[in-house]
């Protein structure tokens, strides 16, 4: 956790020094729905509800940088043909960094962007001593829509497609920890 905060601070410092135009800094709080792309993932854990906090900064004209912190906790059961039940827990913490281009359409603001995502995850078998933790880097593409509610407050919705591939897995092929995510929340303009 400290490491993630450190990364965020470094990024902020970097933006402040080199890129930030001083015209725009927004923070967003979002709740979402996660639909994993791999069927085995869905079979074990189903869909999830991630929480996402993000910062976005203007670099130049309509070009923006964004970073944040996202986490999702999932509960599921091991898959097998027997009668036994093995409850599982899966925790995933992500730090996405993206660049996006903003369009304005009357009062609406829309954006399209791409980015990299660093994912830290841990899977635990609850009834036996078995766990796995790992970290992977993936990539994603997304689109945002912002509807202003007040002077500094907007409603935000975001649709993201991400791929976080891990060769390590219990399956003959690797596993994709990414999928589709839809977020809804608010955005506050700080500057």
């Amino acid at each position, binding site marked *: 956790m400290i490491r993630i905060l450190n990364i965020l601070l470094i990024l902020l410092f970097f933006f402040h020094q080199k890129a930030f135009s001083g015209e725009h800094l927004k923070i967003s709080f979002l709740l979402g729905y996660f639909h994993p792309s791999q069927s085995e993932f869905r079979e074990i854990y189903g869909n999830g509800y991630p929480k996402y906090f993000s910062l976005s900064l203007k670099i130049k004209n309509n070009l923006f940088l964004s970073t944040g912190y996202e986490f999702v906790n999932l509960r*599921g059961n*091991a898959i*097998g043909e*027997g009668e*036994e039940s093995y409850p599982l827990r899966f925790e995933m913490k992500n730090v996405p960094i993206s660049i996006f281009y903003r369009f304005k359409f009357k009062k609406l603001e829309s954006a399209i962007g791409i980015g990299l995502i660093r994912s830290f995850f841990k899977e635990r078998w609850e009834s036996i001593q078995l766990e*796995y933790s790992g970290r992977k880097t993936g990539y994603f593409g997304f689109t945002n829509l912002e509807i202003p509610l007040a002077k500094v407050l907007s409603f935000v919705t975001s649709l993201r497609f991400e791929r976080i591939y*891990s060769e390590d897995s*219990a*399956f003959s092929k690797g596993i994709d920890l990414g999928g589709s995510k839809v977020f809804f929340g608010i955005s506050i303009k700080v500057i």
Partner: protein
Amino acid sequence: MRVRRITSLFFLLAFFIFSIPFPEQLNLLKIKKEKSDVLKSLNIKVLEELDTCYIVVATDSELSTLNSFKIDFSILVKDIKDKDFFFIYSKNPEDIKKLEPFGNAIQIEENTILFWQKEEMGIYIPAEFQKKRLSKDSITEFLRAPPKIEFTEGEIRENEVIPLIIEEVSEDNLVYLIDTLQNFQTRYASTKNCEDAGDFIYSYLKNLGLETYFQPFSFRGYSSRNVIAEKKGKTNPEDIFIICAHYDSTSNIPAIFAPGADDNASGTSAVLESARILVKYPLDFTVRFICFSAEEWGLYGSNAYSSSARDKNEKIIGVLNFDMIAYSDKLPEDLEIIVNPKSEWLAERTIQASKAYYDYPIRKIVSSSFLYSDHASFWQKGYDAFCAIEDNPIRNPYYHTTYDTLNTLNIDFLKSVVKLGLATLSDLSQPIRPGYPETPKGLKAKYVVYKSLFNSVKNIYLSWNRVEGAIGYNVYRTTISHLNYKKLNVVPVVNNFFEDKNLKTGISYYYVVTALDSSGRESNYSQEIGILFERGNSEDKFFLFYSPQYFER
């Protein structure tokens, strides 16, 4: 014109001849005993496994393949076409000199000489040497990495019938059998006397009421017969245990006089006496009583038998071979049980049977290089077998002489060995005890793998047929086939199924089940079932086998 036609024809013919591939020369090699999996994957023909090396046959192009895989080998003999090879047990360094007049001899291990005839001579090996003919059949498919097992002390579950069985061993009958066999004057496999001895053995077994038959085979221009009798198991007749000995003999004048009282009327008497006693007792598993011929010529009889058994994929679980079990050079004489690493469980089980039923000193020797009796023919075909022998190296001064007669034997020692052998055989084949629940049948195993994203848990789901009158079942597991079963359940299992959880990859697990009745009596063990999860390249592989030799994916 005519000349041109002839020339064209000549060239065509020459082209045709040269386009036929010449058969490659075959070489006999010695390869250091490692990388058995590489040899298997290259499909290199391994003919024999010794303690320190494999004896391999390879073409010139296969030699280059071995080189490219950095496998250390040395060529023993180039171009082995039409040559017959023998392994000879060497007791001292002078042995090789004694053999040189009769053929070519190379020391390939401390106690092993490779021998083959000189071109101009027939096969003659002096009678004083123990020998085994090198089979031309490949053993590559049976190669397994030696089990990394530390044998710990274990106990067998005692069966009240077994003490009654071993009590029946008759000294008088053993003496009668040896006397009768030595009175054939010779049992040298190429003689009519040996055939008569075979007839005697056949009648003896047949008169006991056992299903008996001859297995004819030929060797070096002669023919002879193995004598086989079978007592079918009541619960799982497909599981077979064998007690065997060779009945042929040899000496310095083998065609005329070779009484072979110790070698091997003694072993033959053990087989026949065991048959006489066991015929009366119902058993869970099948027992075969086999007397082989032409062992003294290079294990031809047992080789014919084990080849045929493997061709039929018979489920031979263990072979007890008795060869020279009546001479004692000291008192008390201990019994030597010789096994290869794969068959070590059989020696351990004998030691446990001895502790439970008939305490007798046993010396276990684990050696793949002791090939000089019929057990080696079973090793060759991937079956587990032991050789019980009075001494290795042989200390009987009358060995392979005309003086190997009944009066030189220690019948007390013989009787003890027969009791011990019978205790082991009974323990393996399981006499059915009146008043006890029936032995469970139909044990099946299904593997169940539970997976998360990154881990998996491997369970075995066992099921079996219900036993009438049983109030519960016990499930036992071991990691060494047929040895040291440990109970898994704390309270009796009420249903006829059980799931064993969290098994590890790379370990073989073997299971048996027993039935319990309301008065707490427990049945014999069921047939054993085994399972192995092997680590694969991408995903773990799974093997289910009913005994170590029988793999079923």
